[in-house]
């Protein structure tokens, strides 16, 4: 099974061709992606509540789609309420994790509010996908404080730090509850091998950043990164299935 652990649904302010749910499904089929975990584009760049609501409607009827609840550290109580709404009743929701974008909110993940968000995520057993890149506000190192305080919560470093991927790996080496997601403009062929060697293939996740990026971009880059079959199975899907409990969730839903 192939699971895209980092995707978005919705429009972008860049000159790109937008894709609706059906076009995304067609694209997933052609690329061999079985499940996609989305955050709403409008939720991360504008109004998180509005975006989460729209995403909930999109993912509800589609078996291949799952969602991240986007939160904004500037709106802590509202963010916690969003998490309760979409994560408290697992079998009634298709949201399986939390999305935080520090630079778009202007708040580093080391802020007190993000600790509270991490605490809530621990309560709901929901992994957190955090945008990480090279600037101080996006630094992978900002995740360490929460990862130490909430060892049971899984923290996924989106883009594994971007061009600062060595920082991403350094963080993952320090905390076993951190994971590295590989998509991004940076397609340095060394980064995936370095990540696997440092923390093992069990803590590396495939993502595309679609619909912001053409998903073919990351598929093409992975073809240059020399994964073994066993590594490929883990990175491309098994890890996400395990971390987000997708199989168990789908079994429960089949029985209800």
């Amino acid at each position, binding site marked *: 099974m192939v699971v895209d652990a980092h995707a978005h649904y919705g429009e972008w302010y860049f*000159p790109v061709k937008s894709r609706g749910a059906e076009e995304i499904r067609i694209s997933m089929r052609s690329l061999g992606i079985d499940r996609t975990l989305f955050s709403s584009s409008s939720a991360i760049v504008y109004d998180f509540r509005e975006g989460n609501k729209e995403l909930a409607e999109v993912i509800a009827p589609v078996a291949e789609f799952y969602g991240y609840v986007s939160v904004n550290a500037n709106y802590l109580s509202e963010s916690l309420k969003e998490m309760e709404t979409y994560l408290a009743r697992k079998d009634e929701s298709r949201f399986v994790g939390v999305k935080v974008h520090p630079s778009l909110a202007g708040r580093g993940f080391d802020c007190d509010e993000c600790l509270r968000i991490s605490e809530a995520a621990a309560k709901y057993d929901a992994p957190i996908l955090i945008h990480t890149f090279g600037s101080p506000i996006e630094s992978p190192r900002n995740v360490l404080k929460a990862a130490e305080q909430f060892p049971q919560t899984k923290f996924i470093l989106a883009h594994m730090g971007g061009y600062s991927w060595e920082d991403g790996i350094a963080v993952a080496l320090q905390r076993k509850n951190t994971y590295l997601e590989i998509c991004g403009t940076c*397609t340095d062929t060394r980064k995936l091998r370095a990540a696997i060697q440092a923390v093992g293939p069990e803590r590396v996740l495939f993502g595309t950043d679609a619909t912001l990026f*053409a998903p*073919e971009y*990351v598929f093409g880059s992975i073809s240059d990164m020399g994964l073994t079959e066993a590594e490929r199975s883990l990175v491309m899907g098994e890890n996400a299935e395990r971390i987000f409990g997708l199989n168990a969730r789908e079994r429960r839903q089949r029985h209800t």
Partner: protein
Amino acid sequence: MNGSPIMKRKIIDCDVIAGFWPKGRLPIAPDEVSAALLSHGIREACVVSARGIFFDHAAGNREALSWAEKSRTSSVKFHPTATIDLRRFLGYKEEIREMSRSGIRIFRLFPEYQGWDFDHPGFRRVAAVVAEENGTLFVKGKPGKILAALGSCDVSLLIGTHFYDLAEALALWEEGRKFRLSTTLLHGPGSIDIAREHGGEDSLVFGSGTPISAPGASVAVLEAASLSEDAKEKVLSRTMSALLQGGYHGR
């Protein structure tokens, strides 16, 4: 990507560096770069020496010429690409002219590694001499800043820009400004199609950014673009061939 339809076509990659990489351990020796390109069916590439970017542009340019000469009988043909280090500037005019006499048509600048910006007055001077020599200037950055800095200079211009800044290119094309884009970082959904629709079929040149970037990524994005077969061929090789002949001056 093995077996992809693009691999069966002639591809000239405009965006390749070889040599030694001081900022990290990269497979950047010429034979390593050739192998990476060949694995995606890329048999021609415009290659600049990292020595020229980081240390000594004159020595790097001669190294690029030497690699090109050696590559004549190899699986991957290197088109020598010259660079000028604007931190030095001294001797730029003579260097461009000498490289032009050696047959080089593509001249690259590297503000991203050398820490200068497009308001460096030397940028305009280099562009003017490259234009006199009927060459093409290739630089990465935001199209608006680059074109503003160049003013009325009519150099044949190739820009490497991220699709986040593609809107600048669209606006400039609408104003009738003349330049082309490397596809290296046009990996937004439909970015290549949008660029072609606004800039025309000659406005794009295939670039991979090897070995800083994985060549498979750029190949896969171009493969997925909705271009006609003819347009794809132009992007993959024909436009770059013309630039290497010193053609397409301006647009």
